[in-house]
């Protein structure tokens, strides 16, 4: 790999030009792009639901009771004859929104506090770490029930209850990642050059922490969507809205309905499953590729 060249007629030294590594897009692989495409499709359908040529999700008797899938009624109808495809698309809006807000809350609070704790250390770090441990040991379901019953079963408060649960795991990862980089000499070099703590945190550390964190964001969103489904199944999620969880609960709560027309529950379950799988897989791929990058350093 080393080929000696002579510069100034005296010193021979290594000129290493490693073969260019495959592009990041290539390394992420087909699976990542398929997953991403699926997530993009689901998000696009959710956003475009009001203008899509689909049936009103509240309108009953579009199909027969638990009518199976057929052209024009691709996902079939549920027990009141509503269009399951339309329900699934409209249901994705609240599921995705709750997942997204929860992750934003978890990341903005957990991420910021975690990075600060990892960088400043000392008493602040000890206090923060203790709070994280406390949050982690608090029973998740109880916390969610507490928040939604006390503050209301709205999109906001359901998201907040899930977001609060995300703070500790996100914060701990942010702290750990920051610890890895804060001791590196490039941070010292920046400090010598006169960079303030704020600048070091934002310009030097944050970009290094963000990549593993983005992988967690995708995983976390999947977890939040499933968690919302669980809350909906327990009838403690968003009250006046229709999410995948609510749809699955509606369709799956009666054993007779399930036996007669399982598609009404299976379609939203399938879409939920594929969405969460795609989010997890994409997150995993990002982490793998960028971790490998890190090892090369």
């Amino acid at each position, binding site marked *: 790999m*080393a080929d000696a*060249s002579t*510069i*100034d007629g005296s*010193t021979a*030294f*290594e*000129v*290493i030009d*490693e073969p260019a*590594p495959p592009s990041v897009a290539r390394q992420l692989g087909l699976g990542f792009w398929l997953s991403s495409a699926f997530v993009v499709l689901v998000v696009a359908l959710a956003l475009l639901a009001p203008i899509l040529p689909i049936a009103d999700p509240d309108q009953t008797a579009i199909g027969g009771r638990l009518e199976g899938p057929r052209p024009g009624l691709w996902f079939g109808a549920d027990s009141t004859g509503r269009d399951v495809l339309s329900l699934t698309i409209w249901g994705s809006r609240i599921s995705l929104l709750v997942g997204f807000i929860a992750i934003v809350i978890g990341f903005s609070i957990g991420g910021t506090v975690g990075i600060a704790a990892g960088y400043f250390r000392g008493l602040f770090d000890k206090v923060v770490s203790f709070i994280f441990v406390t949050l982690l040991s608090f029973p998740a379901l109880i916390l969610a029930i507490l928040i939604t019953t006390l503050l209301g079963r709205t999109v906001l408060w359901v998201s907040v209850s899930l977001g609060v649960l995300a703070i500790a795991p996100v914060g701990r990862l942010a702290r750990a990642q920051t610890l890895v980089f804060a001791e*590196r*000499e*490039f941070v*010292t*070099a*920046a*400090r*010598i*050059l*006169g*960079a303030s703590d704020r600048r070091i945190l934002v310009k*030097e550390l944050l*970009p*290094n922490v963000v*990549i593993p964190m983005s992988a967690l964001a995708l995983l976390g969103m999947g977890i939040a969507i499933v968690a919302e489904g669980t809350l909906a199944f327990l009838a403690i999620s968003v009250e006046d809205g229709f999410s995948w969880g609510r749809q699955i609960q509606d369709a799956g709560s009666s054993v007779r309905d399930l036996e007669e027309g399982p598609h009404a529950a299976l379609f939203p379950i399938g879409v939920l499953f594929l969405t969460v799988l795609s989010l997890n897989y994409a997150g995993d791929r990002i982490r793998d590729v960028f971790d490998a*990058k*890190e090892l*090369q*350093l």
Partner: protein
Amino acid sequence: MALLEVKDLAVTFATASGPVYAVSNVNFSVERGEALGIVGESGSGKSVTVKSLMNLLPSTATITGSATYDGLDMFNLASSRRKHFYGVDVAMVFQNPMTSLNPVKRIGVQLTEGMRYHRNLSKSAAKSRALELLDMVRIPDSAKRFSQYPHELSGGMRQRVVIAMALANDPALLIADEPTTALDVTVQRDILDLLDGLRRDLDMALVLITHDLGVVRDRTDDIVVMYGGRVMESASTAELFANTIHPYSRALRRSIPDMSMPRGTRLDPIPGSPPDLAIAPAACPFAPRCVNVDAICKFSLPELAPDTANSEHLFACFNPHGELNEESI
């Protein structure tokens, strides 16, 4: 007046189990454009010395003594002066090029940040200066390297980039803390020669920290040998190698492999391990490992004093030639 003058420098760390006397009684000076080697093994206090000069010690450290740069008290810089002091007048090259570059920032960004901050250069002026620096540290194809990320460069290349970053604002003093320890043996020499050449070309003073006497032999004007946080011996490089007085310096010299040694010659290791710095120095720190150790070495601390033959040659030893031992037998 010397460019850098360190007098009676001592650094103590407050730890949970009491104070640690990391560095004491360190004295040395560096003239403009000259090179000083600070040699010692791990725990000898060489890195702490440098960190105290670079204002990088944690708040648990207490510094006493003085360090002046061009007559300026480095430990009490006015904040207006400090703003453009480190990274401008005094710059530093770190030990590990794998960690001294930010992995997610392009080489060019990292190179230009410092000069844009300290000199208010425009983006394009900073870029042309950066390319010039990359050429100066002999990185071929500088324009391409400018837009690459650190992981696309080899270790030696990265250390060249780190050196280029340090040179960005024309420092009068460059401190290199074991700049080659983390590198491949074949690359070490290139980097050392590069530093040596740059020092001459840019008329810059260089403080080269190393654990390897061989590294500083041909590349420095003066040498300070440290052990246990104290200066053991200091002299001009030529004098030190011609007339090594301190038993520790001699032991260090004997532990360097020499190509002219007959095949199969065993190297002379220094038995034992460095002293525990948590104990206030009351005896010669090297006494437990010294071949010339005498009763006095264990109860009293030798002061750094000039040799009778050469007042510029300082050493801290009661018994440099083993005479006391012979007398006491």
